[in-house]
C-alpha cells in the first residue's frame, strides 16, 4: 500500500465504511479540518446530484449545503413514497441517466445494497447517503470527526452507546469503524434492543472486550463519550415492553450530576425526547456541533472524490 494522498480518492466512491482503511479514515478526518469554515468557489462549475428514494431532509440539506459552500450546484429528486422503488425505471437505468447530468451522485435508498449497485452502474463518484439498515458512511465519518475533535484523537477513551443498539445503523457502523482504534465500548440498552451477536463477535475477534448493561447509571460516570440513539415504538412487538423502557433512557440534567467533566454527548439526530432541551446548554452537549461537522466532512469528501482539492 502506497502513501495516501489527496489524489488517492479521485474518482472513487464511498459506499461503506468497510471500504476505508484506518489510514484513509485518518487522512479524510485530517483533510476535513481545512474545510471547517471554508466557503468559496473550489467546485464552481461542478454539479452534485442527490437522488433520494426516501425522504431525509437532514441528510439532503447537509449535502446541499456542502456543495453550495464549495461553489458548486445541486440538482436531484426526493420521492416521498416507497412506490418509486417497486415500479418504474430500474435503479441501474436511473443512475446511468443521472451520471450524464452531474459530476457526483449522492444516493439514499430504502433497500440495502442500492448504493453499491449505483456505484457499479455509475462512471462518476457515488456517495452512499444511507441504504436501508446497512450503511451511512458520511454519518460514520462525521461521528469520528466529532470524537477526534473533542478527544484530540481516536484512541484512549471510553464510549457508551445508549438506546436502540439492535437496529441502530449509525451505532453499527461507528462500532465497526472504531474497531480500528483503541477505545473501550459500553453498550447500554434494554435487552430486546441489545447489540446483535455478530457485532459482539467482531469486537471479540479483534481481541477487545466490552461492557453490556441495561442500566445507564452503572457506567455513566466512567464515560468520555455518550452516543445516544432513539428508541422507536415500532421496534417493540409488545407495546408493554416499550412502555417499560421508554422513560428509562432519557438524558436529563439531573442524571448528569456525577459525570466526567469533559464528557461529550453525541446523537445522530433528529432527537425526539431522549435528550431533554435543558441539556442543550450544558457543556456536555455536542450534538449540534456534530450536525455542523457533517457539512465539514461532506465538503471534504466531495472535494476528494472529485479530485479538486484545497
Amino acid at each position, binding site marked *: 500500500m502506497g502513501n495516501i494522498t489527496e489524489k488517492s480518492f479521485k474518482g472513487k466512491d464511498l459506499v*461503506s465504511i*468497510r471500504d476505508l482503511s484506518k489510514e484513509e479514515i485518518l487522512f479524510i478526518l485530517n483533510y476535513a479540518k481545512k474545510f471547517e469554515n471554508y466557503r468559496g468557489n473550489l467546485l464552481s462549475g461542478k454539479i452534485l446530484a442527490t437522488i433520494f428514494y426516501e425522504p431525509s431532509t437532514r441528510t439532503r440539506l447537509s449535502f446541499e449545503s456542502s456543495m453550495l459552500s464549495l461553489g458548486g450546484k445541486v440538482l436531484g429528486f426526493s420521492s416521498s413514497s416507497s412506490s418509486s*422503488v*417497486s415500479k418504474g425505471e*430500474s*435503479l*441501474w437505468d436511473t443512475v446511468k441517466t443521472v451520471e450524464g447530468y452531474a459530476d457526483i451522485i449522492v444516493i439514499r*435508498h*430504502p*433497500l*440495502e*445494497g*442500492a448504493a*453499491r*449497485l449505483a456505484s457499479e452502474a455509475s462512471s462518476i463518484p457515488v456517495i452512499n447517503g444511507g*441504504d*436501508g*439498515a*446497512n*450503511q451511512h458512511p458520511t454519518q460514520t465519518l462525521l461521528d469520528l470527526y466529532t470524537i477526534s475533535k473533542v478527544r484530540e484523537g481516536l484512541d484512549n477513551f471510553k464510549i457508551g452507546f445508549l438506546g436502540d443498539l439492535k437496529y441502530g445503523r449509525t451505532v453499527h457502523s461507528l462500532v465497526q469503524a472504531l474497531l480500528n482504534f483503541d477505545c473501550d465500548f459500553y453498550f447500554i440498552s434494554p435487552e430486546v434492543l441489545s447489540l446483535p451477536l*455478530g457485532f459482539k463477535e467482531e469486537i471479540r475477534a479483534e481481541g477487545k472486550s466490552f461492557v453490556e448493561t441495561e442500566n445507564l447509571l452503572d457506567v455513566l460516570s466512567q464515560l468520555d463519550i455518550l452516543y445516544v440513539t432513539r428508541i422507536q415504538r415500532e421496534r417493540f412487538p409488545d407495546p408493554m415492553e416499550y412502555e417499560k423502557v421508554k422513560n428509562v433512557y432519557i438524558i436529563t440534567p439531573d442524571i448528569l450530576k456525577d459525570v466526567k467533566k469533559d464528557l461529550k454527548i453525541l446523537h445522530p439526530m433528529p432527537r425526539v425526547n431522549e435528550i431533554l432541551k435543558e441539556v442543550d446548554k450544558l457543556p456536555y452537549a455536542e450534538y449540534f456541533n456534530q450536525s455542523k461537522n457533517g457539512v465539514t466532512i461532506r465538503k471534504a469528501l466531495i472535494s476528494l472524490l472529485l479530485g479538486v482539492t484545497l
Partner: protein
Amino acid sequence: MKENDKTIKVSKLKNGTVIDHLKPGTAIKALHVLGIEGGNAISIGMYFESEKMGKKDILKIENKELKPHEVNKIALISPNATLSIIENYEVKKKRRAYLPDVIEGIVKCGNPNCITNYENIRTKFYVIKVSNGEIKLRCHYCERVFKKDEVELI
C-alpha cells in the same frame, strides 16, 4: 479401493467428468448449480453406498471436461465432492472441490430488503472462513453475513 468398484455401477465413462462424493441427495441440485443442460449425456447416481460417507451421490458427464472453477461451486452444497477428468477410460486429473473466495450468481441473498432481490443483477458473496471451520457468506451488496445453510441456491 473397494469404494471405486462400487461406483462403477453406472456405465464406465470413456471421456468426460466424474463428480464423486456428493452429499447424498444433492446430485440434481449439483447439476443445476453447474448449469449443465442437455447436449451431453449425463448419468446420475444417488444414494450409493460409500465407505467414507455412508451414502453418496455421483454424477458422470460425458464428453465434457469441467473446469475446476466450475466444479468449485459445488463445494457450497457438498464440501467433500471430488472431480475426476476421464480420458479414454483413464483418470487424467483428480482433485477435490473447494470453495472459492467469491461466489457469483448461484446464491440468493436471504435478506428480503436486499437490492439483489429487486433488481435484475447477479448476486455476489464473499466466503468467510471462520476459525472454527464454519463457512459464512457476506453479501457484496447488503453486506449481511449468513451461515452457509441460511442461504438458498438460485
